[in-house]
């Protein structure tokens, strides 16, 4: 055994304000397995330093109020932790759906 940490590669797709601030539509991340919300937020902030305050909380504890994750375009993720698999796509979107 090498002892190296196991990681999963996921894509985070950005929409709205996070996309504008990050300057890209999506980022690829390698996050520790099993991934949880805080490790994902931390990895995202490292890749996109402009996101804290624009989708991510400044202290990197979670998403800002008003944002949610959606898994693979299908499942909206609540406040708890979640399991990610290699190749998953997470959509970072506003929870304000109307308009």
């Amino acid at each position, binding site marked *: 055994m090498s002892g190296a940490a196991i990681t999963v590669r996921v894509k985070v797709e950005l929409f709205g304000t996070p996309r*504008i601030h990050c300057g890209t539509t999506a980022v690829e991340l390698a996050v520790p397995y099993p991934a949880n919300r805080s490790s994902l937020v931390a990895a995202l902030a490292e890749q996109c330093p402009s996101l804290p305050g624009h989708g991510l909380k400044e202290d990197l504890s979670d998403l800002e*109020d008003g944002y949610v994750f959606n898994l693979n375009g299908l499942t909206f993720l609540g406040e708890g932790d979640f399991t990610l698999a290699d190749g998953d796509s997470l*959509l970072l979107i506003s*929870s304000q759906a109307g*308009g």
Partner: protein
Amino acid sequence: MYGYHGKALIVDLTNRTHRWDAIGSDALRNFIGGIGLGTYLLYRYCPPGADPLGPENPLLFVGSPLVGTRLTTSSKFAVLTKSPLTGFIADSLSSSHLATELKKCCGDALIIVGRSAEPTLLRVEGDALEPDQVSVRFEDAADLVGLGAADKEETVKARLGDSRYRVACIGPAGEAQVKFASISNDGGRQAGRCGLGAVMGSKNLLALAVRGHLPVEVAEPDAVSSYGKDLSRRSLGAATEKYRNLGTMANVAVFNRLGTLPTRNFRESTFEGAEQVSGEELHRNHLQRNSGCANCTIGCERILVSRDKGDKKGKGGVRMEYESLFALGPLCGVSDPDIVIRAAAICDDLGLDTISAGATVAWAMECFEQGLLTTEDTGGVELRFGNGDALLQVLEDVGHRRGIGNLLAEGSRAAAAVVGHGSAAWAMQVKGLEMPGYEPRSLKTMALGLATTPRGACHNRSSAYEADFSDRVDRLTVDETRGRIAADSEDFEAVLDSLIWCKFLRKAFHDFYEESAQVFTMVTGWEMTADDLRKCGERITNLKKLFNIREGWSRADDTLPQRTLEEPLPTGVAAGVGLTRQELDYMIAGYYLARGWTPDGLIPEKTLAELGLQGMVRQDGDRR
């Protein structure tokens, strides 16, 4: 009386008379204002079976207790009538300075009946020294005939020589009684849906100008002020971030990714050109400025300009919302942002509801591609999906009822009845009102909302989509919870639209009902609890339904377009997902149960009694 005036100004265009009618405190408490009070007044003033374009159909402009308080987003008013598009209740909201002047001039509502013999400007002005006195003038408006909505407003203001007048007017589409014509105010804001502009046009009323002096007093001014500051602060937080940055245009890219972006007349729910007309791209390449309504801290409006070398329309800036964007873009297969911006500008100028306009043209595009309409019908226009120039041409034709536009001006349901050959299957409307930009097959809770809401397919009177865009439900399947969710969301919207708060403020409340009840009491001095307010929402929704029943509603009217019930979605993450008639009927049954209605969707006496509606009407069309 605080928050209200307890009266409505009734203007008869036929006889050129006016009077004040009292509105009792019970009616104000029970129906609040805006859409709720408007529904109550529509009951009183619209004769059963009225011809929507006849002089007997009243056109109501209704304020709310919050108008004039300076609470954020409260400068709003409702416009109601019997819809020429649906034959049922028509209720729309608009906003900004006109709301305040209406309240200072016309009391709690302005109710216009009759029909003027000539094109008319209705000018209502309060007396500065005797605020209860009002001067009502019926002025010749021949010079306004044919002007676009914005030009009409400017011409009226120039004529009156007083910038404090606030104006509502119709464009050429309203004059031509296009069944989905809108009413425009305050520089391009629209009371858009259900054909209110056609009713105004049927009355030969081209413009309304108001200026008033009635004082707007609240019971607890210090408490209102203190609360208002706190709410304004919250309105600038994360709960409104989307609306403050990209506005509602932000929906395009997200909806596309989620497989909920209606495309090419709802044949698909993803659009290959979505990124080109996404809010992010429009923000980057076409934003002229941000704007907002009077008394609003959110400022959701995005004013866009076209960058092409074509028609001047769209060069001066046009408000762009998601609904206009989806209807004039993906729904018609158009991915050129300049075309979409120009199309929205044309609609605003003509005074057309962008949703119904885009959806009706999309229906015609499909008819053309199916061979049911030809270039002989369209005056040589190749009316195919994606043909932006054709879209622009046909919108102009609709607004002036020229050529094929005369057919399309009736709306997709009526046009399909003329064209026949199965084209009703892809007339994407409910109760005659064209569908907004929410794909029901991949938003099952919203499917129920679209099918059952009294004014027809509507995303503003039912916010059932909120459950679909959350972890509360599986949006691709149905279950027994949806009836309650849809009913609650509808009642919530009824309260929101009656107080009237902006919908974009809704997440800024800690506890919507608790806070709103407290604000109502601070403003009016009348006790109101959160439960009372919930009951108001239920009462208002039931009264809307009663209006429709009186006007001929049957169980068959609560449904969705045939396409959505027979064709699974072909693309995107929801590919293969459909919605069967059985699934929809199952959800509708749950909705009727949640409402305490009969399996046929009628309202039992017991439910009427619980809501205090038993004395108002019977459901056989006779007033008590």
